């Protein structure tokens, strides 16, 4: 067994614009969003409790990224409300960062400087220590001084997740984090992410169009319709933990996957 990393956060970053204290539930109710005349989100209700991983499954172009942008506070909803612990979301915050589709790192900075960005922006003195720990946890210690373009796609993807985790957010919004990777690499990354999220008890809303990924990572599944998106169904996924490659052959997983896939294809 590899060395287990401490589950204790190195430090708790508190600074202006951050809500210190207990992690809170994210709630979105009746969220609707259009771009001009294009109705993207019709009516979305979703909540993520502390430590929970909610998978949102939906066809391409249905508005998954749009939903995440609204939840992250990057764009206001046309209707409905988005709240964290009862407080309305008004703009982006390091407490609920979103890792964008296609993983954005600052291309002019080394990997280490990219990961240090968040803690330094919040005036966290432990930036160096936090980043060392994250580099280790992501298996990227050897590449700390490389520029993003010198990393492989999978490394970039992990780096982008590590970048926002450096602020130790209670809630993480992930937009198809492993969509562009080959199947084996994706499975490795999924196992890595499952371990990381469990260790840090980070609540996560994971958007994907991959049924297997949704079932493997989610504690709960929300299935969205085609555009304009509504929630078609909600499923509790009580598969045994810890999940990983063995889960894929679990009869309950196989059955569930067939079930969901049929409904996705029939939709």
């Amino acid at each position: 067994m590899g060395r287990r990393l401490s589950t204790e956060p190195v430090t708790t970053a508190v600074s202006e614009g951050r809500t210190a204290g207990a992690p809170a539930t994210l709630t979105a109710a009746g969220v609707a969003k259009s771009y001009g005349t294009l109705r993207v989100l019709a009516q979305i209700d979703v909540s993520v409790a502390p430590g929970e991983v909610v998978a949102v499954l939906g066809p391409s172009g249905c508005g998954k990224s749009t939903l995440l942008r609204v939840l992250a506070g990057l764009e206001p909803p046309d209707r409905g409300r988005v709240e964290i612990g009862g407080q309305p979301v008004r703009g982006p915050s390091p407490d609920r960062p979103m890792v964008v589709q296609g993983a954005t790192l600052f291309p002019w900075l080394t990997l280490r400087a990219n990961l240090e960005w968040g803690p330094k922006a919040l005036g966290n003195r432990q930036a160096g220590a936090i980043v060392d720990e994250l580099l280790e946890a992501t298996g990227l210690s050897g590449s700390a001084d490389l520029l993003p373009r010198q990393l492989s796609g999978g490394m970039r993807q992990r780096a982008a997740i590590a970048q926002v985790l450096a602020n130790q957010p209670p809630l993480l919004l992930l937009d198809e984090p492993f969509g562009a990777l080959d199947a084996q690499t994706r499975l490795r990354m999924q196992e890595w992410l499952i371990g990381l999220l469990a260790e840090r008890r980070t609540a996560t809303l994971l958007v994907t169009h991959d049924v297997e990924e949704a079932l493997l990572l989610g504690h709960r599944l929300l299935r969205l319709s085609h555009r304009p998106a509504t929630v078609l169904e909600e499923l509790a996924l009580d598969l045994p933990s810890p999940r990983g490659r063995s889960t894929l052959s679990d009869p309950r997983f196989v059955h569930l996957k067939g079930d969901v896939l049929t409904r996705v294809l029939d939709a």
Partner: protein
Amino acid sequence: MALREVEGGAGLDLGEVLGPSSEIATRRRLSGWRRAVVGLALPAVLLTAWSVLSATGILSGRLLPAPADLARSFRDFVVAPQREAVPGVVPFRGAAAEHIRASVGLWTGAYVIALCVGLPLGLALGLSRWTAAAVDPLFQALRSVPITAWLPIGLVWFGLGSGAGRFLVFVGAVSPIVVATADSTARVPRQLVDTARMLGTRPRDLARRVYLPAALPGIVTGLRLGLTLGWTTVIVGELTGVSRGLGAMMFAAREVSRLDQIIVGMATFAIIGLTGDILLRAASRPLTRWADA
């Protein structure tokens, strides 16, 4: 978990598991000396042809002096002992340092002002739709006025002398700086800005921490264009009655039909402009290397 097992257990580098970095495409550049040889080949061929045409008399010295004659004039310009200064006469022999100092002084002085005005204005235009909407039409209209057309008004405003010259060089240098800065700032990917905000960057720090570095490769292109355009405007700036400067020397040479001296002036312009561009590029390279293909 399993991932970390693999790493911890076998001491495997993830880079190897996920694909070797050697596969990352990097476009090859010609090495320094190779580029120099290739770059000098064409001028060398032309120079040889020119010498042959002049020596055989096919090319009249009245149209284009022979390379050897030009070399002699150039040497006179640079190293010959200076004659006593005569008021109202623009010197040539041994006067290179004097003229170059005047022209380069005009150039750099105006360029620094162009930087101080152009960078903030370009950033403001690229960052704020309101500023762009308010300023852009006027700026584009002014930009369409030919640089030489600014000469008369420059003379009225600043009188004869280097003030008007500096104004003209400023006009020449500032617009590429503004256009390139505004354009590359406006093109900074939204995702970079969003990511910075979600990492806790304060909105007022975004210009300095995100927009400026992300736009820098494009800005540097504008700085180079502005530097060169400013330099080519120096000669217009020296139509303002100054008695020192490469342009002043060339106009004086034209009055007495010294084609060799005119060409020496052109060559000096070329050498100094090229040197300036090389220096600026070298100075900016460490800042923009990340964007190299």
